[in-house]
């Protein structure tokens, strides 16, 4: 799973962490490397071992086995040198509550030996960049979650780290704050800062990460670009269709479902009930009839408000999981419908999202 990178900033090989008195390894033989300027996402359910892996890389957890290196420095052997290169934004707020926002930044830089004039300049610049310029002299204990998170990222950047570790950077933030943090992470990538982030938010991994590693039970199950990962899911394309019958008759759903399933290239057919959420990317769709209303019970003229051409209710909806590209299935489907006299109202081509990949690898079981 490890492809050696020419310019690896983070290298983890066969990493194992076993806590005393625990039956299983928290991290169980994980290997990966992250290149310079790359945004790398570790995705996994709670307790998958993401935070422990980050803990080893940031010198806070001593590995039981294996090696973790930052820019060639073994973090277990020379933690002090490794700390100069890295910065951490933890899950929980750990700002210095006795200090103002600005002093949080200044003292952090002082720990790293940044000269005083340079500290002041960077603090002003970062406060401004993170939208905290007017809060600089306020104590941090009254900061909101979003403000604290922004300040922690600013603090992490004060000593100009080579690699930034973000542990679930947007958990619990409102959408605006989340987008703001995403934008800052993208800025960092443009400036060549390597970013390693953990998340269980698929959108976040898909939006930010160049490559994603999926972890569960201490193991790395898959590692690739989000696009390549989604291509791994069985039934790698989906087709969703809405079928309407001519006026005066209902769609024979049983026969149609059997017919669709018999088409070559279709792996599985699912009847989608009205009101059920469409798969990712399909949106609410024009089929969302009034909740509670039986399918086909709409007004005889069939047109809902503003839904030009498409009946607001009625018809039947199917989801086809195909073994071939979904687009190639459109013609056979139309052909089948022509035989039964039904018409195709709407269709939607869907590819699996990272969430499908994630569930595929980690299962649906709830985690403690």
């Amino acid at each position, binding site marked *: 799973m490890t492809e050696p990178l020419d310019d690896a900033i983070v290298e983890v090989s066969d990493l194992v962490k076993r*806590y005393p008195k625990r039956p299983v390894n928290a991290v169980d033989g994980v290997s990966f490397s992250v290149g310079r300027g790359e945004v790398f996402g570790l995705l996994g359910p709670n307790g998958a071992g993401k935070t*422990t892996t980050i*803990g080893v890389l*940031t*010198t*806070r*957890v*001593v590995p039981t086995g294996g090696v973790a290196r930052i*820019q*060639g*420095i073994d973090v277990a052997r020379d*933690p*002090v*040198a490794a*700390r*100069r*290169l*890295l*910065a*951490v934004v*933890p899950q*929980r*707020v*750990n*700002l*210095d*509550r*006795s*200090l103002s926002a600005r*002093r949080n930044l200044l*003292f*952090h830089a*002082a*720990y*790293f*030996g*940044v*000269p005083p004039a340079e500290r002041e300049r960077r603090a002003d610049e970062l406060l401004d960049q993170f939208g905290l310029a007017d809060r600089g002299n306020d104590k941090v204990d009254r900061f909101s979650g979003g403000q604290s998170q922004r300040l922690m990222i600013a*603090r992490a950047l004060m000593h100009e780290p*080579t690699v930034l570790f973000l542990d679930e950077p947007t958990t619990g933030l409102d959408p605006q704050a989340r987008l703001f943090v995403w934008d800052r992470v993208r800025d960092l990538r443009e400036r060549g800062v390597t970013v390693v982030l953990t998340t269980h938010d698929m959108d976040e991994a898909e939006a930010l990460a160049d490559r994603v590693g999926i972890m569960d039970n201490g193991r790395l199950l898959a590692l690739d670009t989000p696009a390549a990962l989604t291509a791994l899911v069985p039934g790698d394309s989906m087709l969703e269709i809405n079928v309407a019958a001519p006026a005066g008759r209902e769609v024979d759903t049983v026969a149609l479902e059997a017919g669709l399933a018999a088409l070559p290239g279709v792996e599985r057919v699912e009847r989608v009930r009205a009101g059920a959420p469409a798969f990712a990317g399909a949106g609410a769709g024009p089929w969302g009839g009034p909740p509670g209303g039986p399918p086909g019970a709409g007004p005889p003229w069939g047109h809902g408000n503003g839904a030009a051409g498409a009946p607001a209710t009625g018809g039947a909806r199917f989801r086809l999981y195909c073994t071939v590209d979904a687009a190639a299935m459109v013609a056979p489907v139309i052909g089948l419908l022509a035989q039964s006299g039904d018409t195709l109202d709407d269709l939607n081509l869907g590819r699996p999202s990272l969430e499908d990949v994630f569930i595929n690898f980690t299962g649906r079981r709830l985690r403690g």
Partner: protein
Amino acid sequence: MTAPTTTEATAPVAAARPRGGPWRAFLAILGRDLFVTWNELPVFLVQVILQPFFIIFVFGKVLTNLGFAQANYGDVLIPGTIALTIVLTALQSTALPLVIEFSFTREIEDRLLAPLPTSLVAVEKVVFAALRGLLAGAVMFPIGWLVLGGLHFDVQPGELLVFMVLGALVGSAMGLLLGTAVPANRINIAFAVVLTPLLFTGASQYPWASLDSLRWFQVITLLNPLTYVSEGMRAALIPGLVPHMTPWVAMLVVAGATVAIAAVGVRGFIRRAVD
């Protein structure tokens, strides 16, 4: 344009050591702690002075005025009370913040990720708490003078300095041990169980030699490092007034206790800091 191989070989090293070594980080962290103390100086002083002030006032002034204690008891009381103030202030200055920072605010994480060995972060805590203990002890001189309306000391400057510093260090080392050994939810109990016995078995209100008639208690007090600091302070301030331990013996015991307790405390600190 130098040879690329040379650049590659030196680049990580150059990046790894930008400015200053671990001691620079140590001083910056100490600077942060002093800055915070300076900003809340009045609160800090009220916090540490109130208890010794009332000890001196009630035992040194009220009881002597009422005739329950000898007239010069105040002079015996003050050196021990200064010792007590130094040791307990230093102890609380490590123990309490450690418990809070490790479990509640997690503030310490930023310092644990600073470029210095984890053990030095613990040493910084000890040094800083010792400075607070020394400050509190120094303030007790004018307070004693004000409350008792004058002090009759025969000051031995060298011994005074050594015992104040040693007392501060042994106190903060005990605090480091307490703050890292006790889980956060038990710290209230730990403080109640540790502080009160420490306060009354430290020979700060009476010369140790005078416990002759209460032999078992005299032996117990030898287990408390505060006893040696109190004895040392009396040797440094009122050498002729009451009997006291030989100063160099007391110094050795306190220094040894400091090293031993701090060593265990630093190990406890590292255990808490690194998984």
